[in-house]
């Protein structure tokens, strides 16, 4: 029961934050909305026993990534209104039609047929196996996934070097 209440609150907060990201005119409001969504998703992770992932979500996303976003927003300037000229007429109408069709399709196969999102082992799962403690996560990460782990380490190094190169201030010659 408590889980259901928590789920509803976190889900509504996540959706509200997501809508804020899209509709807010000011990018700072979008960033704050995204922050709310990230926190709410972290709460949903905790409900599902993914404790370590939730902690990393808050530290990496809400901490590092959002700080970077806000920093760049402040750097670039937030006052500029988006221009509302349509280069492609009717594109918004077609996007709306397409989105409505996709929603109708997904809702249709969910509601009409006996479509299951995830083939569950059983309806009442004992979640001991997926209790995401640090030990439990580290065991597959450093055995089965160790190559991917090393590859992401290399990727992060390359990304940091690339960011430094891109952000280098080059004075224009003459």
């Amino acid at each position, binding site marked *: 029961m408590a889980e259901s209440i928590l789920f509803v609150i976190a889900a509504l907060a996540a959706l509200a934050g997501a809508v804020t990201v899209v509709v807010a005119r000011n990018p700072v409001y979008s960033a704050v909305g995204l922050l709310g969504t990230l926190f709410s998703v972290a709460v949903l992770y905790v409900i599902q026993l993914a404790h370590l992932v939730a902690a990393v979500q808050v530290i990496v996303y809400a901490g590092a990534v959002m700080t970077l976003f806000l920093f760049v927003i402040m750097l670039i300037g937030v006052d500029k209104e988006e221009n509302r000229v349509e280069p492609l007429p009717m594109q918004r109408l077609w996007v709306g039609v397409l989105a409505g069709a996709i929603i109708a399709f997904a809702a249709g196969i969910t509601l009409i047929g006996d479509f299951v999102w995830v083939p569950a082992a059983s309806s009442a799962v004992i979640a001991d196996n997926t209790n995401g403690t640090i030990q439990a996560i580290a065991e597959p990460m450093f055995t*089965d996934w160790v190559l991917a782990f090393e590859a992401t380490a290399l990727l992060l190094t390359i990304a940091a070097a690339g960011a430094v190169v891109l952000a280098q201030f080059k004075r224009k010659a003459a």
Partner: protein
Amino acid sequence: MVPVDWYMGLAAALFLIGALGMLLRRNALVMFMCIELMLNAVNLTLISAGRVMNDLNGQVAVFFILVVAAAEVVVGLAIIVAIFRRRSTASVDELSELRG
């Protein structure tokens, strides 16, 4: 226990909102945030499916997605800043031509 369908529905809604924002907004920064929104929706599906299928690999995959998303944000924001220095705009409509 909340049924997994609810989580999947919520993740689908979050992904849809992110995709719509990607299509509707012109500010490159907001488009980037919408990408983050979509990545989070996918992470939520991985965690939920991993719990229902009693498999820890879903959570490990989310870790790698987090790392790749962080790298993507670093490079992407650096590109936006570099573009802003040259053109002093962050609107993708004014950057539509691929010339220097």
